[in-house]
């Protein structure tokens, strides 16, 4: 009987060990997207004490405004939120007033346009999703408010375990940066790219995207002397979109640090109390 049990146990352990190895052999079969893993960048907001680089966010806003916003909305961000980028109230007011916002109905029951106010939200480039899709070859450009949280390439084992300890939370900006700098590459042999789409090995849903390469060197003018390259634009706009998706990140980490310190000290005190209480038990028979 014991031998049977041992055999069973050995089989169980062998099956558990063999599983990952067998799985890997099969993983390559279907085409997996993205074709290339997005490179992992270092961001100013990485890690437990990371903060946003306000100058970078301002540059990113400029890239969004001058390039991306032609097709992509930013529905959940209000002009007033831009004060977090280091702008004064007056600057935000001036920025908002550049936009024409539809308001109404007025007393005559008519809709009308007026200059934007800080309490307004970024207006969308298209009146509705159908119009956006019709103007873009059938695929509506996604809203950008949450895009930095809504895109993450699969990390796989064991990387996803390490991510707990390295606090890897920048899969979104890494992806955005990789996608924006990943155009103009030669597709692998045997891969046909449908006409009207553009090959990009970092795209998550397919081998090619409907979006034409949006950035080119020198396209956006920077006032602070930063290089006017696609790589720099992509990095800056990715950082800006991370802020747009997670505007309370800095305060979250700040409070988190205080909470962790409190729990450590409090836990230590509770432990000492517990030990004092239980020491008396240890000596009683």
């Amino acid at each position: 009987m014991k031998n049977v049990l041992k055999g069973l146990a050995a089989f169980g352990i062998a099956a558990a060990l063999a599983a990952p190895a067998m799985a890997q052999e099969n993983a390559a079969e279907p085409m997996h997207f993205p074709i290339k893993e997005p490179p992992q960048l270092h961001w100013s907001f990485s890690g437990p004490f990371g903060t946003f680089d306000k100058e970078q966010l301002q540059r990113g806003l400029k890239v969004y405004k001058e390039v991306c916003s032609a097709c992509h909305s930013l529905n959940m961000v209000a002009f007033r939120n831009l004060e977090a980028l280091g702008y004064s109230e007056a600057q935000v007011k001036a920025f908002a007033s550049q936009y024409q916002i539809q308001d109404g109905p007025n007393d005559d029951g008519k809709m009308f346009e007026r200059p934007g106010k800080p309490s307004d939200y970024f207006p969308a480039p298209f009146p509705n999703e159908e119009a956006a899709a019709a103007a873009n070859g059938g695929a509506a450009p996604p809203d950008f408010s949450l895009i930095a949280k809504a895109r993450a390439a699969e990390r796989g084992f064991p990387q996803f375990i390490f991510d707990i300890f390295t606090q890897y939370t920048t899969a979104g900006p890494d992806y955005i940066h990789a996608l924006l700098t990943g155009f103009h590459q030669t597709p692998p042999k045997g891969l046909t790219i449908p006409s009207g789409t553009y090959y990009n090995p970092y795209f998550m849903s397919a081998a090619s995207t409907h979006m034409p390469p949006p950035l080119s060197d020198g396209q956006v003018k920077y006032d602070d002397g930063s290089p006017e390259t696609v790589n720099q634009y992509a990095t800056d706009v990715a950082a800006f979109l991370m802020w747009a998706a997670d505007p309370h990140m800095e305060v979250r980490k700040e409070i988190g640090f205080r909470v962790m310190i409190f729990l450590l000290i409090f836990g230590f005190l509770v432990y000492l109390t517990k030990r004092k209480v239980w020491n008396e038990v240890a000596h009683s028979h």
Partner: protein
Amino acid sequence: MSGFQHSTYTPKTGLGRWFDQRMPLPRLVYDSFVAYPVPRNLNYAYTFGGILSMMLAIQILTGIVLAMHYAANSGLAFDSVEHIMRDVNFGWLLRYAHSNGASFFFIAVYVHMFRGLYYGSYKAPRELLWILGCIIYLLMMATAFMGYVLPWGQMSFWGATVITGFFSAIPLVGDWIQQLLIGGFAVGDPTLNRFFSLHYLLPFMIAGVVVLHIWALHVAGQTNPTGVDVKTKGDTVPFSPHATMKDAFAMVAFLFFFAYVIFYIPDYLGHADNYVQANPLKTPSEIVPEWYFLPFYAMLRAITFNVGPINSKLGGVLVMFGSIALLFLVPWLDTSKVRSAVYRPWYKLFFWIFIADVVMLGWLGSKPPQGVYPTLALIGAIFYYAFFLIIMPVLGLIETPRKLPNSITEAVLQKKAGGTLAPAGATAAPETRS
């Protein structure tokens, strides 16, 4: 071991006596949480009941505030959650605490259940206690599933579509049950509304069953790592301050990990697709449930073949629900007279293989059902069933257990004498006393 049968509560004040004669609530609290005797040898695996009570309280409190700002309407839900995250004061904290709180609730409940399986906590006279726990677990699963639908992201919507779809596999009444659940022919606004209503109701039902669970516990008393019954007063310590302080320390330690996730990696346990608003016209490339359902999801998808009149869909659903139903039968499936795995070498081995099997099933649940994965999941599911239906009953009959200690105190003293290192508490005692 009932704290209620011989109450030692003596009210000291006039008001206390007045109260005690009319409604002895202070007596109940005193007997249940102060004088209640617990075995002196409980380890930290026994602190998860307290941790679970804390998590239930956290979930209810954060949930009530979130419900004040949430809009259960398919056109507004997604934006209202983002409104909480962006504009409500500390809304991000409430929402992250609540969404990660569900995960930590499940982490705690799995430790709690595995501890019960390891130390035989389900054996007589604690069968009802165990079954009440299984009911809580079922209610938790329903609550968590419906809660995940509320943010109305892509995974919310498609997860709801897939899971309510299970019910359509039931012969004759399946379609009717599915339509009742989702309030129509497809997941939509009526689904969201009823899920919100039920998501608010079920936690209070959990709280009710928790009261019964604790009541049953206090009648039978706790088990302990030796599985030997409490024999003398020396085997126990009073609940306060001993168990309260130990539970408090475990709670703070648990909160430390919980806080780490909330503040530093709050989206780690979620799925990126749930930050995309639900779109009934666009199916995500992979529909994956939350991590705590993955082992069951793997077993569901392991059945890829028809068995007689049962097609693969119904087969998968039966295997999945059966895997939970088995838990209710555990008190009668285990035939061993010995409670604790400490004294059951073979059961101990199979227990750890079972843990490995569940982890493997969880990993398979996150993989697409292609290639070798369904086969592995089938092996995993067969072992899962075999553990309960074959190993548990058979081992109890053929296994030779190790010698049990005569009493809890004897086991404690043996352990102290046997260990090469003196217990930390013993050497440190003089310092803390001065």
